């Protein structure tokens, strides 16, 4: 218990260091742009592929579970749309990003710790926590909502492709379904969740990497911990945010 509380305390102390005034804004700006590419742009492919197939599977599963003629066919499109917007684009995409981005952040910062690169920054008088972590947080906070929107669009497109190619639904019915009873607030809800998840993934993973003590074995462990802890915290916040935003 004491160890757990110590870790929580260390996490918030790290955040305090991260959000202190940057030494030179132009350097942080360049670093943030670099992180946009490292953490954001390179994630588009995986998010698009996964969303496409998730949308396809949702459509096919909904179709096979609503074969009764009393259910209108357009419900398949509606189900695909709402599932993608409410849960899959934000939560499932965030879990995938926790694996890809989270392990990347923990490994990168952890390696810098064990090879004394963080010490080198400190010796120069640079706030290493802020320099290394703040650009990553800003980049993911700005880019992950874009990834969520891509996931929604590609997922629904995947659903349409799967539905029309297998013949479980016509194109007209699917398009009617995705337009039917649309609640724009669901998009806002999904984007708010994405922002929280982006912060959790980046800060928890950076925390695991920043306090690595030892060698390559510990870096590997930190990377695993980063994925596990950020995934669990993310799921917990998913419940809390859903209750707060949709109740």
């Amino acid at each position, binding site marked *: 218990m004491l160890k757990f509380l110590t870790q929580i305390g260390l996490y918030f102390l790290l955040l305090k260091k991260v959000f202190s005034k940057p*030494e*030179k804004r132009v*350097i942080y700006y360049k670093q943030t742009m670099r992180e946009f590419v490292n953490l954001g742009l390179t994630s588009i492919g995986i998010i698009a592929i996964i969303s496409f197939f998730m949308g396809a599977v949702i459509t096919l599963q909904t179709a096979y579970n609503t074969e009764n003629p009393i259910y209108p066919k357009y419900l398949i499109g509606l189900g695909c749309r709402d599932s993608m917007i409410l849960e899959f684009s934000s939560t499932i995409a965030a879990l995938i990003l926790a694996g890809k981005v989270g392990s990347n952040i923990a490994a990168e910062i952890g*390696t*810098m710790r064990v*090879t*004394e*690169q963080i*010490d*080198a920054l*400190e*010796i*120069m*008088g*640079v*706030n290493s926590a802020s320099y290394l972590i703040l650009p990553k947080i800003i980049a993911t906070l700005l880019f992950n909502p874009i990834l969520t929107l891509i996931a929604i669009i590609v997922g629904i497109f995947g659903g349409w492709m799967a539905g029309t190619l297998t013949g479980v639904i016509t194109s007209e019915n699917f398009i009617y379904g995705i337009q039917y009873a649309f609640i724009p607030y669901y998009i806002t809800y999904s984007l708010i969740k994405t922002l929280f998840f982006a912060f959790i993934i980046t800060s928890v993973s950076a925390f695991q990497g920043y306090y690595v003590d030892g060698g390559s074995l510990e870096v590997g462990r930190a990377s695993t911990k980063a994925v596990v802890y950020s995934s669990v915290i993310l799921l917990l916040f998913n419940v809390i945010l859903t209750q707060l935003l949709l109740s």
Partner: protein
Amino acid sequence: MISVKNLNKSFNGVSVLKDISVTFEAGKTNLIIGRSGSGKTVLLKSIVGLHEVDNGEIWFEDTLFNKLDFKERKKIRKEMGMLFQGSALFDSLTVEQNVRFPLDMFTDKSAEEKDERVNFCLQRVNIINANKLFPAELSGGMKKRVAIARAISLNPKYLFCDEPNSGLDPITAILIDELIKELTEEYSMTTIINTHDMNSVMEIGEKIVFISDGVKNWEGNKNEILTSDCESLNDFVFANALAKKLRATDK
């Protein structure tokens, strides 16, 4: 000049540095020597503030460094350069970006002035035609030299070197030693070097502090080290068979 007074440091209740007092002189290469695990690196990292000491005083000229807060320390840290055991070059940056990093972070020089300084520092450490290479593409000796170039890019008053020769062949090790000594004299820096390499001790040891089990056992220079009465120092200095043979012949 850097002075350390009654310095104590422990980790998880285990005392690593015990009441160490020593003065490191400006314009000289000051060496901290001792066996592996004797506390050399902890002493060096305590001096630069990477470890917080339990008690004692660390003075940089007339400033009590270990009582300053992060912001106040920053001022002095800008006057420090450090060469780490593994070089600690930033993997994601090229050679020239590594050397340029402190200039970008702490100066308002124009791009041309920075380029000029970077090229000067790299030439000074004999790194030629490697500006665009990444650290992973360099040899051990080149990494050390680039790290020295980065350390001197802001004209530091204090240079700290942690095992500068570790992992280098004897000839490259001597070149690095000579380079550090030359730069120390050129810039009148206070240089502190951690080493257990006796070649370095005999080449550049203007002031030598011997540490054993966290205690300062001996202090002197390279001329005095071979005639010392300190038993633990003699065990360290004459550890290898050749040195023992020479000592016996001498006697």
